[in-house]
């Protein structure tokens, strides 16, 4: 009798429990850290006020692929930052929700954790979290207001739960959206190119790649004894960028159409200066330059070889490029440089399921 009573009680209690909690796993805050393998890359200085967690990254990834972030819910971040293209856009200028074109080439999104000197071509966002909200509001891009975006997310049970899992305060607000996007973007690491494997001693460069590497890392020699392409002065460090703003001689003063860094600093010395981009995955991330004017790597190399233009802000590093004859690279040199640049492609970035659309 007692046994029957006890069993009934258990069944009743369980029924009540289920009735009140239709979700078998009620959402709770979970701050389990997300592990990132840097493999050969230095450990970056990440912001201490946004610890990367498994749930935060899950949320950030959902948001990165979430079309509700745009007006009319037709575009997500991933529309213009396409994984198979190294999280960049194959189009010279990306088309926004209003069918209008942006003014600059979409920058690839990987290894963001090492950027310490501003985001976007002109560095107008000081942090990645600040960056994350700008394309959402840009009339040429996603053209959505932050209050609208928040309202749409708040109407979703899926997001309600995920914000609770990701943040102690569980709130669906602008700040948490930006923090989650920052977390996810920090996890998009690219460190498995042939170059990385050669550095780790697992593979070897071909003869052409090796020659290209030497050209890349060698100073121009005015005496002509050694050939050097000078690339390394700006494309330096583990991510092939010195994380700073330069005028690389694309235009003369008269031809300049984009003030670049000057828009942010208001200093005329910064006119037409743009952030040195990483050269990792360069074969995936064309077209090239802030305005996507070059379609191929050869065009880029030819620019530096013999087409650099003098202007009031062109960098002193272009001193040899500006001389008559430029760097004097032969077509074989250009081919070798390209061969080396192709070793910077990380094929696993294109297909890594951790970075793909979760839906």
């Amino acid at each position: 009798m007692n046994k029957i009573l006890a069993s009934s009680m258990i069944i009743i209690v369980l029924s009540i429990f289920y009735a009140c909690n239709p979700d078998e796993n009620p959402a709770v805050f979970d701050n389990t850290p997300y592990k990132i393998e840097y493999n050969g890359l230095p450990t970056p200085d990440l912001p201490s006020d946004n610890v990367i967690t498994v749930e935060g990254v899950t949320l950030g990834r959902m948001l990165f692929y979430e079309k509700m972030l745009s007006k009319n819910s037709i575009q997500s971040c991933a529309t213009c930052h396409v994984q198979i293209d190294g999280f960049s856009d194959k189009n010279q200028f990306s088309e926004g929700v209003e069918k209008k074109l942006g003014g600059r080439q979409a920058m690839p999104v990987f290894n963001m954790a090492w950027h310490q000197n501003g985001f976007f071509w002109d560095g107008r966002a000081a942090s990645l979290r600040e960056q994350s909200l700008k394309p959402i509001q840009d009339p040429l891009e996603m053209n959505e207001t932050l209050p609208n975006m928040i309202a749409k997310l708040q109407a979703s049970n899926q997001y309600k739960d995920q914000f609770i899992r990701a943040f102690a305060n569980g709130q669906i607000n602008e700040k948490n959206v930006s923090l989650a996007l920052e977390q996810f973007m920090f996890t998009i690491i690219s460190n498995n190119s042939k170059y990385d494997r050669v550095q780790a001693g697992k593979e070897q460069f071909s003869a052409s790649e090796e020659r290209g590497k030497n050209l890349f890392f060698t100073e121009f020699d005015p005496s002509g004894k050694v050939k050097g392409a000078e690339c390394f002065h700006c494309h330096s460090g583990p991510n092939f960028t010195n994380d700073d703003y330069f005028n690389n001689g694309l235009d003369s003063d008269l031809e300049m159409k984009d003030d670049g860094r000057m828009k942010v600093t208001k200093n005329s010395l910064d006119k037409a200066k743009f952030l040195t981009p990483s050269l990792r995955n360069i074969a995936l991330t064309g077209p090239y330059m802030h305005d996507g004017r070059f379609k191929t790597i050869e065009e880029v190399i030819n620019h530096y070889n013999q087409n650099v233009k003098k202007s009031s802000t062109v960098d002193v590093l272009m001193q040899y490029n500006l001389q008559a004859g430029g760097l004097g690279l032969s077509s074989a040199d250009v081919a070798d440089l390209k061969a080396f640049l192709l070793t910077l492609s990380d094929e696993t970035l294109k297909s890594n399921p951790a970075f793909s659309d979760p839906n």
Partner: protein
Amino acid sequence: MFIRYNSKFSIFNYIVISILLCNSCNKDEEGIKYDYSHFIPSHFPIPISNPDSIPTEAQFTLGKKLFFDPVLSRDGSLSCASCHKPSLAFADTVSVSAGVEGRLGNRNSPSLGNVVYQKKLLKEGGLPTLEMQVLVPIQEHAEFDNNIVEISDKLMTIPKYVEMSQAAYKRDPDPYVITRAISAFERTLFSGDSKYDQFLNGRTKLTAIEEQGLNLFMSNKTNCSNCHSGFLLTNQNIENNGLYSVYKDIGAMRLTQNPSDEGKFKIPSLRNIALTYPYMHDGSLKTLEEVIEHYNSGGSNHKNKNTLIKPLNLSQSEIEALVAFLSTLTDYNFITNKNYQNE
């Protein structure tokens, strides 16, 4: 009678000096160092230096060849001049210059102008002589990543270097020669013919705004000249200027392990300052305006911050005047001097 230092300064002077020096040396203790006055700016002091380090023409020529020769780097990809560009008063345009294979250190390349007067070398002032300093970029992983013994072995196989080394030091191009010759060249990098120098020598006038900037610079309102004092515009002390509240690069504390040295770096000369951007030990400030804004704000809080660094309440026009004055410190004859260019 002084021969004024200017663009006419030539190898001929070295020959004259060398001859004079040899005579002086033989005369032992009399008046050896005064021969410097032939090629240093007339209003600069005579550098107090070991007579042996006063370069002969052969030593200068060898040092200059080495300075511009990528043979010093492990893979033959870059030379001293890669990061100390003559056109930038022997500094670099990037915050941190890349070494072999594009490796990055964490400090900005300093100007070598008037380096003969530096009492201590490197940003934390850890080295007393240029000869010792030469070894640092040669060995640094993120610079030449090389070894002076291996460089020496390589130079021994190059007849031109053996010949020049014998002519300059009566010995083969060994580490002794390499460090001395490069230092010898660097010691000749006098820069004292800026508009400000011409003004001091009564050869030109400053504009109203430049003069306003000079007066502000020297005033108690800014206290710039408390640290940036003397003919080099530095007192060469090691100080914390409040750039950060937390330093990634701990500066002089790296040497002393003393927390009271945290974030302290050598005060740089302001000569050619408009050419030697970006600024600060890490090249984090890009323009003179940003630098002045840093000092105007009083900087970040740090226990070691020099007490002179405090909010200055400078107006926009005062900042512009300071920039105008600082721009008069550029010595165009220095950066175009053929003696200092790669041939």
